[in-house]
C-alpha cells in the first residue's frame, strides 16, 4: 500500500501565454526625414513577447538570459506591474501585477542596473528614510534591515555623502539597499552587475546569494555576465525573439551547448607554435599570449599536458562566453525545430 504525499509547490510567479506588443514610430534620419515623421509618422507593431509561459516556485533563484532585445526586461517590467500585457496571464504572489496594489508593491522589488532612485543631490540616507515612510516599514525592522545591508555591502562611510559625489560602484550598492529595505519576497534583478568592477560584482553576487537563502526570496535575474549565472542560478530560462527556447538546469544548458573550454596561456619563451595545434584549436596567438579552445571533457588533461610539455608562465581555463553559448542554443534549437 502506498501513501502518496503530494507536496504542494507554492508558485510565486505564474506567466501564461504572455504577449506584449509595442507600437513604435519609425524614424527617418536627417532633416527631411524628421519633417516626414511629423507629417506622416509611420507606426509599426513590434512584437516584444510572442508567447511566454513559465512558473517560478517560492524561494527559487532563476537566471533569465537571452540576447539584447529578446524580451527579458519587458518580461520583468510586466511582472513588476510597469507594463500592461497585450495578452496572457501573469500572477505574482497571487496578484495581478498591473493593478499595482499596495500589498503587492510592498512585497516586490525591481533593481535595474541603469535606473536610479536615489535622490541625486542628497545623501543616500535621505532616500532610505523616504522609503521607510513609503513602504511603512516599522522603525525596528528598518533599523535592522538597514544595519544588515550596510554591513554586508560595506557602505557605512557613504551614507551621508551626496549621491552625486559617489562612484558608480558605490552608488549601485546604495541603490541595492534602497531597493531592499522593505525586505521584498520577490526580487527582479535586471543586469545587477552591469558596469561594475570585478570586486564590486563579487560583492553584489554574494549578497544576492545570501539574500535568497536567508529570506527564502524568489529571485528572477537577467544578466550577460556568465559568472552571475554560474554562481547564482541553478535554473535558467533562455528567451529569444520573445519566445522561451530553454527552461531547465544551468548545468544541462552548459553541458548541452558549451562544448568547449578556453585555455589562455602566457608563454615564458618563444617556441614552435605548431605543437600547440595538437592540443586544441588555436584561436589567437599574440606572443607571449595564446588562446586555445579544447573540448570540455578533456580540458583538465589538456591543461596538464600543456604545463608539462611547454614553457608556460601562466595558464587559465575559462568558460565560453555566455553569448557564444546562447548563440549555440539558438542554432541547436532551430535545427531541432526543423527536424520536427
Amino acid at each position, binding site marked *: 500500500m502506498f501513501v502518496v504525499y503530494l507536496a504542494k509547490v507554492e508558485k510565486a510567479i505564474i506567466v501564461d501565454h504572455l504577449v506584449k506588443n*509595442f*507600437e513604435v514610430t519609425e524614424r527617418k534620419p536627417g532633416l527631411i526625414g524628421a519633417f516626414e515623421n511629423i507629417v506622416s509618422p509611420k507606426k509599426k507593431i513590434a512584437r516584444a513577447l510572442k508567447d511566454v509561459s513559465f512558473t517560478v516556485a517560492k524561494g527559487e533563484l532563476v537566471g533569465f538570459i537571452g540576447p539584447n532585445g529578446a524580451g527579458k*526586461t519587458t518580461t520583468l*517590467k510586466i511582472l*513588476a*506591474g*510597469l*507594463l*500592461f500585457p497585450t495578452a496572457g496571464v501573469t500572477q505574482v504572489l497571487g496578484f495581478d501585477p498591473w493593478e*499595482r496594489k*499596495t500589498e503587492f*508593491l*510592498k512585497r*516586490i*522589488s*525591481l533593481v*535595474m542596473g*541603469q*535606473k*536610479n*532612485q536615489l*535622490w541625486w*543631490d*542628497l545623501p543616500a540616507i*535621505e*532616500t532610505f*528614510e*523616504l*522609503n*521607510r*515612510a*513609503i*513602504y*511603512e516599514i516599522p522603525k525596528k525592522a528598518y533599523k535592522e534591515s538597514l544595519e544588515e545591508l550596510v554591513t554586508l555591502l560595506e557602505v557605512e562611510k557613504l551614507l551621508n555623502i551626496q549621491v552625486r559625489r559617489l562612484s558608480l560602484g558605490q552608488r549601485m550598492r546604495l541603490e541595492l539597499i534602497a531597493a531592499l529595505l522593505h525586505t521584498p519576497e520577490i526580487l527582479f534583478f*535586471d543586469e545587477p552587475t552591469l558596469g561594475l568592477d570585478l570586486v564590486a560584482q563579487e560583492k553584489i553576487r554574494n549578497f544576492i546569494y545570501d539574500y535568497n537563502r536567508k529570506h527564502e526570496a524568489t529571485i528572477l535575474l537577467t544578466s550577460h555576465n556568465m559568472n552571475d549565472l554560474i554562481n547564482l542560478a541553478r535554473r535558467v530560462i533562455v528567451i529569444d525573439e520573445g519566445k522561451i527556447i530553454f527552461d531547465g538546469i544551468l548545468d544541462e544548458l552548459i553541458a548541452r551547448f558549451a562544448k568547449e573550454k578556453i585555455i589562455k596561456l602566457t608563454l615564458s619563451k618563444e617556441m614552435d607554435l605548431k605543437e600547440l595545434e595538437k592540443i586544441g584549436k588555436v584561436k589567437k596567438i599574440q606572443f607571449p599570449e595564446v588562446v586555445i579552445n579544447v573540448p570540455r571533457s578533456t580540458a583538465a588533461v589538456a591543461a596538464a599536458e600543456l604545463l608539462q610539455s611547454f614553457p608556460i608562465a601562466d595558464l587559465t581555463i575559462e568558460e565560453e562566453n555566455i553569448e557564444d553559448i546562447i548563440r549555440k542554443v539558438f542554432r541547436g534549437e532551430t535545427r531541432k525545430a526543423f527536424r520536427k
Partner: protein
Amino acid sequence: MKKYLSVFKISFAQEFAYRLSFVMWRVRNVMQIVLVFFLWDSVFSGTQKIIFGYDKAKIITYVFGLIIVRAFVLSARAQDVAGEIQRGEIVNLLLKPVSYFKYWITRDISSKALNLLFATCEWVILYLILKPEFFFQKDPVSLGGFFLLVALAMFIFFVLIFIVSAITFWMPEAGWGMQFLIIVVAVEFLSGGLFPLDILPSAIQKILYLTPFPYLIFFPLQAYLGKISGLLLIKGIIVSAFWALTLWLLMKTIWYRGLKVYNSPGK
C-alpha cells in the same frame, strides 16, 4: 499620510541643494515685479487718473497681488513630470506603494510653501522701498472668496500640468514643447499673469471665460480687489470648482490610458 509628510520633507531639502540657482531665481522674481511696477507707475504719472477702470492703487495692488498669487499658483514642481515620463524615471515611483499623483501634489505643496515664504519677504521689502499706494481688502467675504479661488486655481494648474505631461506617453518628444505652449503661452498670457484681462476687448474676454485660464490668476485677484462680489463671486467659484473637477476626471482617464501604452523607455 505619513508617507507624504516624508515626501514633503525631502522635497524641501532638495530645493535647497542648489543654493545659488535658488537665489538667482528669487532675484529674477523681484526684478520682474519691479519692472512691471515702474511700467504702470509711469503710465499713471500722466493726467489720466483711471485707465481701463483701474485707478493707481488698484493697478499697483494687481501687480503686487501677482507676486503672491503667481508664487502660489504657477510655481509647480510637477513641471518635471513630462521629463520623468520621457526618461523613464517614472518607474521608480510606479514600483512603490505610493500614489504618483499625491506624491507630486505633495512635492508641489512643499515647493509652494518655500516659494510663498520668500515671496512674502520680498513683498514686504518691496512694499517698504517703493511705498506704493496699496489697496487692502477688508471685506471678509471677498477675502474668503479670494483664498478659496486661489486654492482651486492651484489645483487646476496642477492638474493641467499632469494632463499636458501625459502627452509624453504617446509622443515622448512632444512633452516639453506642449508644456511650453500651455504654461508660457496659454497660462501666463490668458490667466492675467502679465496684465489685467479686462483691458482686452469684451468679445475676447467672453471667449476667455469659457476656458479655465482666467480662474488661475485674474479671477482670484478680481475677487481680492472687490471688482467681483456677491452672486458673480459665487458663480465664479462654482465655475472654478467645475473646472477643477472636470479636469481632474479628464486627467485620471488620460493617465489610465497613458500608462497602458507606456513602453517604459530607458532600457
